[in-house]
Structure formats: structure tokens, C-alpha cells
């Protein structure tokens, strides 16, 4: 990682949105760069942005195609996709194409900044994973494989633990059904299995499994473990 402020590339064809993002990101001390189209975005890639905010509706290239080309050239940059409401299929495709997260337009700046932090945290964590993950009353010790709720150890089946570990490793990030199934079983497995394990896991670690606080459902897309406090 280079020293200095994190570099964020904003790819959006709407000047007001770029202006808004530029101002919002500046408050967090990020250094911003702007591209109004796919061509300009690809030209910027050699400068290695730490994160790319990518609007899927660009005039000169399909958002998903651009995402694939970005991923082909730069595996390290985090990508957060801006998409429209109701386009769950597009969101899932973007995530499966290597996007780290998505934000639905119109969005609140706080929400966006939180997503960016998560995406960047995940990047930084690659270098030094925190041994103990904590969120609310839940703690997960990935080294000793111990899961605690309110300091009481919770017994998990191996599959439940694998599921939780996977989520902890990507805490704060949305994980698609396909990704989770692929990691835990194989991609063709019916999503029902995943649903069953999530349900069981919630019953063991959530204070109120009917209103989950930790394992959040991203309807039509997948699950997201709440980011550590």
C-alpha cells in the first residue's frame, strides 16, 4: 500500500452525482479522481486506484463489461457499484463479476461512506487479519475456532462454523447466495440448504432470530454480516 490518502476513482456520467461524491469523499480525506465514461475509467487504471465507484449505466459501455475489464487489469482495487432499485439481477451479476459491494441509487452519503469503509477494510485486512472478530455481543476467534455470545461459548456444527467464518472474513460485505454455496458446497446446490443453515445459525447467535441483528438478509441477493463495531 502506498502511503498518503487512499485514491478513489468515481466513474459516473452525471456531473451532479460526481460533484456530490467528490464533496462527500473529501470529508473522509480520500483523494478523488473522476471519469465520465468507461474509456476514461480504463485509462485511469494504471494509476492503481484503491477503490472504484462504478455506475452501471454508462453511455459508452455496459457496466458489467467494464467491470470485467477492470477486474482483468486490476485485481486489487475494491469496486463498489451504483445501481438502480429493482435491479437485483444486475447487482448479483456485478457481485459475481468481482464487485465488492453495491449501493442503490438514490443513496444517503452516510450509507455510501460506510460501504466504502467496509470495502477498503477488507482490502487492508488481507495484510493482517484480526484474530478475534467482535460485533455486538458476538465474538468469533478464528484461530481457536471459538464462537461466543455474551461471553458464553456457542456450539456450532462444522458447516455452521464454516458459514460463519466465511462471513466474518468478509464482514460488512454482501455475499451472494452463489458465492456462499460455491464455498460451502458447490455452486449448483439449491439455495434452500443455505437458507436452512443461516436459519440455524441465527437461532444460535442472534438475540432475536426473527429480527436478526448480525446476519442480515439482502433480499434477492445474499447475506451480509454486520461490520465490526
Amino acid at each position, binding site marked *: 500500500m502506498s502511503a498518503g490518502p487512499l485514491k478513489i476513482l468515481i466513474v459516473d456520467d452525471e456531473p451532479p452525482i460526481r460533484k456530490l461524491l467528490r464533496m462527500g469523499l473529501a470529508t473522509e480525506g480520500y483523494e478523488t479522481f473522476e471519469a465520465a465514461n468507461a474509456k476514461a475509467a480504463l485509462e485511469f487504471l494504471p494509476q492503481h486506484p484503491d477503490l472504484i465507484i462504478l455506475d452501471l449505466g454508462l453511455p459508452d459501455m455496459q457496466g458489467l463489461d467494464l467491470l470485467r475489464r477492470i477486474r482483468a487489469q486490476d485485481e486489487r482495487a475494491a469496486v463498489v457499484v451504483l445501481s438502480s432499485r429493482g435491479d437485483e439481477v444486475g447487482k448479483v451479476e456485478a457481485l459475481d463479476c468481482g464487485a465488492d459491494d453495491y449501493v442503490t441509487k438514490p443513496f444517503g452519503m452516510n450509507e455510501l461512506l460506510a460501504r466504502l469503509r467496509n470495502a477498503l477494510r477488507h482490502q487492508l485486512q488481507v495484510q493482517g487479519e484480526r484474530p478475534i472478530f467482535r460485533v455486538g455481543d458476538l465474538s468469533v476467534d478464528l484461530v481457536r475456532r471459538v464462537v461466543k455470545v455474551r461471553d458464553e461459548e456457542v456450539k456450532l456444527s462444522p458447516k455452521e462454523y464454516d458459514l460463519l467464518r466465511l462471513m466474518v472474513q468478509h464482514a460488512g460485505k454482501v455475499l451472494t447466495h452463489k458465492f456462499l454455496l460455491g464455498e460451502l458446497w458447490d455452486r449448483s446446490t439449491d439455495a434452500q440448504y443455505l*437458507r436452512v443453515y443461516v*436459519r440455524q445459525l441465527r437461532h444460535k447467535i442472534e438475540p432475536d432470530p426473527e429480527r436478526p441483528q448480525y446476519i442480515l*438478509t*439482502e433480499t434477492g441477493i445474499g447475506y451480509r454480516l454486520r461490520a465490526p463495531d
Partner: protein
Amino acid sequence: MSNRRTVFSSFTSRGAPRSLADETADSRLSFLVPSFELRAFAWALLTVAGAVGVALMLWPAIGVENVDLVFLTAIVGVAVRLGLWPSLLASVMSSLCYNFFFTAPYYTFTIREPASIVSVLFFTIVAIVVSNVAARARVQALSAMARARTTELLYAFSRKLAGVGTLDDVLWATAYQTALMLNVRVVLLLPGNGSITVKAGYPPEDQLEAADLAAARWVWQNDEPAGHGCASLSDAKRLFLPMRTGRGVIGVVGIDADRDDPLLSPTERRLLEALVDQSALAIERVHLVEDMERVKRTVETERLRSALLTSISHDLKTPLASVLGAAGTLRDLSSKLTDEQKVDLLATIVEESERLNRFIANLLDMTRLESGAVVPNATRQDLQEIIGSVLRRTEKVLEAHRVTLDLADDLPLLELDPVLFEQVLFNLLDNAAKYAPAGTTVTIRARRQGDAVSLQVMDEGDGIPSADLDHVFDKFYRAHKGDRVRAGTGLGLAISRGFVEAMHGTISAANRDDRTGAVFTIKLPVPAGRDRLGDAA
């Protein structure tokens, strides 16, 4: 296509068409033309032989003067059963036999006594006259039967057509039925794209030769039959008839067959014309129904458009005015505002923008529903999970209310589109938040009821006036409330119903039995097959 198959099978399932066709072919007026069927003549001879036998036996008892009655009975029988020509043969044979067996000298054809000559002569005359009369009676009976049969067939045909809903089905039924009843090949041509083209055929046919097409067009333009066997355009392979209704020609039917004799007998021609008339009426009926539907749709669209305009002008402009006003005030009068006022104005901008956003989202959903663009991506879903997710989304909307969950433990997985269903629940909860006062409880209850799961959203508001119960799911319908309640978009419940129905469920509104308050009930079918929730666990 499947519709067509249903009609097809309804025509075939009774086994009727084939037999109808055969019977119609039998009744092809064989009785008008001498039919030299050997069997009939053989039967006539046999009957006469039988009469001779009976007469020989009875002769001693009844006397020679009454023997002729036996023969006359046989002749009448032959005439009634077998028609004119066999009965004439029977008459001649009877008079010969009478002469041979019963006039002296016996067993010769010679007649000695003048009285016998007169007797044989009169017998022959009477026999022939009786033959004629009886045969004519038979002809009349047969033609009456044939007419009754034709009427019955036409009636059955018209009844079938009456039950047919689409133009395709009417055409198909007409072509099929005409082909079978008259044993011909049929094509039906209807106008379209400025000319007439083949729309149906039995056996299926979609192209006509140039001569036939020309004949068909001529019929279409002149409203007169043409083609094979007609004065006009007789080089066409087929015979074309106009299909007429009170409003004029609506199509053309063409027939041909593999026989050399005249394509159709006069009776068949009449039958064809009757069939074509029936079919023309049915086609016109379908057209009229379509026209009416179109008019109804237009009226409905117009009504919606005006409601939409009213709604848009109000629901889009009001929040926009607030946003513009607040933002403008902040920009122009910033120096004169207190910090508190600024925060207030900023909050207005955010809230009103969110309201605008919700309204536009609803408009988009409604448009997607109405244009048929909502195709549920249904997979097995855990109701509890969707409810958990929607509760997170409605946290802000319901922050002034308590939400109680009452979900049965034995809920099966359901075939749902999770995104659509979450929106349904969101709209119901949003509605409850609007109409039930702050501090009250909203209950979500789910139960399994046989082959269905019922999900209820209950509030503790004033309930729904009974006159409004039937309308709450209508577009742009808003229950009348005082100023206390901020009007919604009038679309939320309409969208909910559209989405639920797209997922093969039902949704209904009622008032609570146990206290005041509204209750919305969604019923969803439990998918067939094993509930795999238990398996994996």
C-alpha cells in the same frame, strides 16, 4: 395453441364429427336418383319369395281372392324399406308369381279365364300404384329426417361456436367441422393488411394458388360465389363463397374435394351455406367482443390517465415544492437563519425527497405491473427470513409503533419472489403505519391452513369503512381520513395485490373481529413436494 387443441378435442371427444360426417354423406339424397344397389333388389326378390311361401300356406284358409293382399303387404314393405325401384321390381315379380301360382292353369304363366286376366291386370296396377305411393312416403320421411339431422348438426355446430372465445378457435372449428360434414377440404380467408389471406384450413393450408387467390379476392370484392362450378372464375380449383353478416362480407370460405361429380349436391350446398352463415356470425361476435374490450380498455386507460395526472400533479409537485423552497431558502437567506432553522430545512429536504423517491418507485412498480413486465422469480423461501428483512427496512417507518411477530413454527418454505414479496409486506406495514395511531401495535401473524399459508398484517387503527373494503386495492384509492394522516400514493395496496397475484396468492382486506383495526390477509399456496427445510437440518 393449447386453446385450439381444447376445442379440437371437444369436437373429437364425443366421437361425433366422424359419425356426423358419415350420416351426412348417407343422406346425400340417394333417394332422388335411382340407386341400383344390388342388395336392395336382392332383398326385394327375397321378400317376394317369402310372400309366395306365406300365400301358399294361407291359400287354403283365406281363399284365392285374398292372396293378393299378402303380395301387396310385401310390396308396401319393400317400397317403404328399399324405395321405388326395388318395389317396382317386387310389383312385377309379385304379379308374375300371382299368375304362376294362383291362377289356373297353375304353375304356368298362361291365363285361361278372362276373370283371372282382369285380376292379374288390376293386381299389377294396384301393386305399381302402391309402390309409388309408399316409396314417395319414404322419400318424404327420409328427407324430413335428413332435414332434422341437418338442423341438429347446425344447432350443435352453432352451440359449439358460441362456446368458443377466440377468432382462431372459431376459424379452426369452422374449417374442421365443414371439412368433416361435407367431406371436403376447406380454407378460410379473412381480411388483414389490406387484402384477404388464408387464416385457417382443414387440412391445414396457408398458401393458395394464384387462380384460387384471384377467385377468393373476387368473391371478397363482389360478394358472390366464384370458382369451381360457378359462372365466374371457374378455372379455380376451389369453390369460394362469401361469409356474410348484416354488416357485409367478413371473409371467404373455399372448398374442394377429390371427386369428379359436382362438388356439392344442392342439399350439401345449402348445408355449406348454413355453416358459413353460422361461422360468419360467430366471427362477428368475436370481433364485437374484441371491439368492446378495446373500448373498455380505452375508457379504463383514460380514467387512469386522468387519475394519474391528478395524482402526479399533487404527489410529485408537493414534495418538490418543499425541497425547492427549503433549498432555495438555505441558499438565499442563509445569513438570516438560526442553526435550528437550517437543520429543520435540511430535514425537510431529505424527508420530502424520500417521499418523492417512494412515489416514483411506486409509479414504476405499477407501470411494470400494468405492462406485464413483472415476472416473479419464484424460489423456495423462508417466510420468517423475508419478514426479518422487511422489519429492518421498515424500522424508520414504524419507529412510533410496536411490531409483534406471531409466526407458527411449522411454516413450510413457499414459492416466492423474495424481492416482490418483501415489497408487498413493506407496503402493508407502511399502510399500517399511516392509518394506525402512534404507540399502537402492528401484528404480523402467519399460520399454516391446510394447503395454504395465511399471513396477516393487523393494526389497531380505526379500521376500514365497510363501503371502502372493496376498493382499498384499487389504484389511486385513498381511504378518507382527517388531516391527521398524510396521504399515501394510493398505489401501495394496488401494487401489493398485483405482486401477490403474480405469485399465485390472494390478498384481502377486512376489519378485525377482536377490536377495531384493519387486517390484511395474504394466502399463499404451499408448494407440492417435500419441504426440504427438514431434510437439510
